[in-house]
């Protein structure tokens, strides 16, 4: 092949462009990307137009799955729970992460130790966290209620209470989700040129002013990235719910991905599950597009 490429460059180049050997380099990556992401995505899209259980031959039903989804109260509830989780988790994790990062971005004793502490939850597997917290928030024997008892507050149902379970899951999610924001913000804070801050303080800016007018603007691109990233994470929430409540109690914590899983693998409604997955994918696409537009505008502004 390489020898041929040298002997008859013109024909190969006509087919493969100026540097035909480049194709050899990228082929493995292309095949892997096509095979592992695009092909399954296309397959799932086809699946979403079918009545399929993976077991018997499927039938083509067009958009029926989607119109059924529109009338499905359980799916509507799953979407609502996902959106509530996202609306709470994204700003809280970013805001909390920023506050902690600012607090840790100074010369204090044992700062390395504190930083490690904040980051550890992020490294822990979601499953391990979920197990840990479901014991802590047990309504009868958990540490959380024991602490509430100590300070004289009534015992709470927590994960056993349909009105509270989703918020407890937000709290568990924050415990580790915030760690990620802290890492990113700490890195970004290191990148802010020292001269900028010094110049501002020489010009008479106070700490508040420096924060508002120098530091925060410099962090904006990172904040947008975190916003998008955390939104993706929370729209795709699954493992935390699967381990702590499996959607209960009384379907108060059913989120979209869990719903997809239940339809496809518990009720043998693979086509219907695929349609639900595509509704989620569409939501993710919208977020990605908004981000893309923002990035392009920003680059245009910089240029």
């Amino acid at each position, binding site marked *: *092949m*390489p020898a041929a490429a040298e002997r008859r460059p013109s024909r190969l180049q006509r087919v493969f462009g100026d540097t035909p*050997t480049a194709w*050899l*380099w990228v*082929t*493995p990556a292309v*095949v892997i990307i096509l095979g592992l992401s695009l092909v399954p995505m296309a397959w799932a899209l086809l699946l979403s137009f079918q009545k399929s*259980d*993976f*077991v*018997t031959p499927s039938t083509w039903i067009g958009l029926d799955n989607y119109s059924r989804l529109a009338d499905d109260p359980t799916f509507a509830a799953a979407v609502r729970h996902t959106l509530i989780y996202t609306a709470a988790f994204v700003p809280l994790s970013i805001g909390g992460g920023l506050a902690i990062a600012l607090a840790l971005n100074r010369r204090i004793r044992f700062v390395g130790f504190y930083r490690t502490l904040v980051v550890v939850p992020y490294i822990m597997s979601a499953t391990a966290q979920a197990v840990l917290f*479901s*014991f802590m928030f*047990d309504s*009868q*024997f958990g540490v959380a209620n024991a602490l509430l008892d100590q300070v004289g507050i009534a015992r709470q149902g927590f*994960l*056993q209470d*349909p009105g509270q379970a989703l918020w407890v899951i937000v709290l568990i999610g924050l415990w580790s989700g915030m760690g990620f924001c802290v890492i990113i913000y700490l890195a970004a804070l290191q990148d802010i040129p020292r001269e900028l801050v010094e110049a501002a303080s020489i010009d008479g800016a106070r700490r508040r002013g420096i924060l508002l007018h120098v530091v925060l603007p410099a962090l904006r691109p990172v904040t947008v990235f975190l916003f998008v990233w955390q939104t993706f994470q929370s729209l795709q929430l699954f493992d935390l719910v*699967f*381990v*702590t*409540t*499996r*959607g*209960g*109690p*009384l*379907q108060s914590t059913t989120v979209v991905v869990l719903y997809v899983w239940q339809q*496809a*693998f*518990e*009720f*043998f409604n*693979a086509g219907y599950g695929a349609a639900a997955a595509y509704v989620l994918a569409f939501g993710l696409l919208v977020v990605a597009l908004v981000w893309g537009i923002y990035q392009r505008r920003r680059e245009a502004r910089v240029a």
Partner: protein
Amino acid sequence: MTRLIPALVAALLLVSGCGGSGDDATEPKPGEPVEITMWHGQDDIAGRVLGELADDFNATHKDIKVKATTGGVVADQMRQKITTALASGDYPDIAYIFGSDLANLARSDKVLDLTDAVNAPDFGWDDYFAPARDATMVDGRVRALPALVDDLAVVYNKKLFAEMGVDEPAEGWTWDDFEATSKALTDSGKGTFGTAWPAVGDEDTVWRVWPLVWQGGGEVITDDGKVGFGGAPGEAAFGVVNQLAQDGSVYVDTKPDSDQTYQLFNNDKIGMVVTGPWQLPDFIDAKKDFGVAPLPTFGGEPLTISAPDTWTIFDNGDARSKAAIEFVHWLNSPEQDAKWVTKAGSLPIRKGTTSKPEWAAYQKDVPGLSVFLDALDGARVKPANPAYPKVSEAVGQSLVAVLLKRSDPSDALAQAVQTSEAVLAGGG
């Protein structure tokens, strides 16, 4: 030029990687052993025992080679794994499938119909316990072979009973007795509960209520495909659950897998658990002084539920099918069954197993096992209906509503019946 070499190597690896999955010959060459794959989904001891049994089989059967693996998942996730495997067309010969999933999987023509095989005179189908046989039947055909048999009884913590001054369960006790005992064992000051009920709303929540429905004269799904638990039988069953919830004598475990329930039992915080023989080794490890009583009744004949799991065999060509049936048949023969059940902590699949010395020794080591075994005669299994998972979901949500005192039991039952009727009519 040298820069090209890594790319070529990568491309080559890729090609050979793709080829790897394509060389599964469906028909073996003559003279070579038939290779079959089993996905057993068992970890720890149970998985090791199956591996050893497969080795024994391979050593004594030169014409068949069994590859026993977990299949990469635990049994709980096998349904998920096997449905995707079936969709991809690359599936094992034998898989460990829960009885409640069989009706759905058996709609696939890749799941072998074993009716003729088990009716062969030397197969010994009559020697299998009735619930084990029943759990493999779908629409009157045998679509799998039994893999594991269990049933439900009440395991109670003798220490807590003594501490609270409560009489231990007696022969022929009723659900009224159960409620009263549970209440007497409950002390919010000490943090003790009479009993526990899994409240995720999944099959774990639901199958514990079917014996009550059956005892009350109801059915899960009737023979003509209608909801069978409405009216008096359902009212009675939901009434017991409601009474426990209202008394606050039931620990409502909303966490998946019931780990905490058993931990609390081991810590003398829960007096009675409705559970199966698989849990006994755990209680023994924790050095619990426990007793086992049959499920209470509403005054009629004792009746419990059995939920056997199956070895489901998939069609990969006649030679492999035949080999797979031969292997599972061998695995289920009393000699092997005795090794398997004493390690898996389950009940014998075959009546013949109970006369094996391993079983006798095991029964001596595990107190209370005989109660489970006695209850197995006459235990019933869930109906093999493809709509069952959705019926179970509806009943599960209603039971959780009652357990959490969020719903009146009659309303909850009516809701479950209504949803199930819609599902069974094909509207789900």
